[in-house]
């Protein structure tokens, strides 16, 4: 089974992704320093979401993996969001 050829990711890809991640980190620091009220949380989470997408796709090799693993990961994140939303059905309307 080890004959299955491994996709070797070139170093360049990793360096570019790291640069992007660092830029996004500074961008998220910058955006939370602006007074956006309730949108601050949304902004911070948006940047965190993009960063985690990059980590999952490139560092964790999901881009090169079989599709069903991607589907599982997506499912797990989706079910977490659903659980969070349902919990807030209680707290939002209490």
């Amino acid at each position, binding site marked *: 089974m080890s004959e299955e050829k491994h996709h070797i990711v070139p170093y360049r890809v*990793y360096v570019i992704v790291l640069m992007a991640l660092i830029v996004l980190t500074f961008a998220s620091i910058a955006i939370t320093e602006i007074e956006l009220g309730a949108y601050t949380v949304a902004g911070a989470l948006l940047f*965190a979401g993009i960063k985690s997408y990059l980590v999952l796709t490139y560092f964790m090799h999901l881009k090169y993996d079989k599709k069903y693993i991607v589907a599982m990961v997506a499912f797990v994140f989706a079910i977490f969001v659903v659980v969070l939303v349902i919990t807030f059905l209680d707290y939002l309307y209490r």
Partner: protein
Amino acid sequence: MEQNAHIEHDHYDAEASKIGMWLFIFTELLLFGGLFVVYSVYRYVNPDAFHLAAEELNTTIGAVNTILLLVSSMTIAMSTSTLQYKKKGATLALLAITTIIGIVFLVNKYFEWGVKFSHGIWPGSEHLLNDFSQGEILFFGLYFVMTGLHALHIIIGLVIILVAAYRIHKGTVNENRAALLENAGLYWHLVDLIWIFLFPLFYLLT
């Protein structure tokens, strides 16, 4: 048991190991997921107190630790490539860098917690219970639990990396049997992934 050794030799399945690791990562995600639910609820209930309490945290240390973890994520990801290129020395060097960065992260964390402790802020401390509002108590309770649990995962990740490095050194993990290194990498990225969310939620939303 010889029969069992027999089974394992026949049965090296890199994909099975990979799925196994992913499934384990799912449980870790939901472990922290439970804490994120708690955090979200209390942030929603006590928005002002959470803002106030977050001012107490040092954004610079948080940002430095974030960048450190991102760099270490890259180095361990690169080590999976160097292993495939059969560059054993470079692989071990990259793992060494990753380990050192992980330790530096923990040292930073130690000093960060130390400053809090010297201010009299720790879970259940007199100062915290008497002079802070309920929302702030919750914020610091969650701060210590979540960053503490995260630090625990850093330590576990480091142990796995060291085991992988040892096996690479011995040659039992190599370009044909890379599953252990790949899994160590996946676990380390998970630790990074969780920090990507912890950092803005605790340090940035002031």
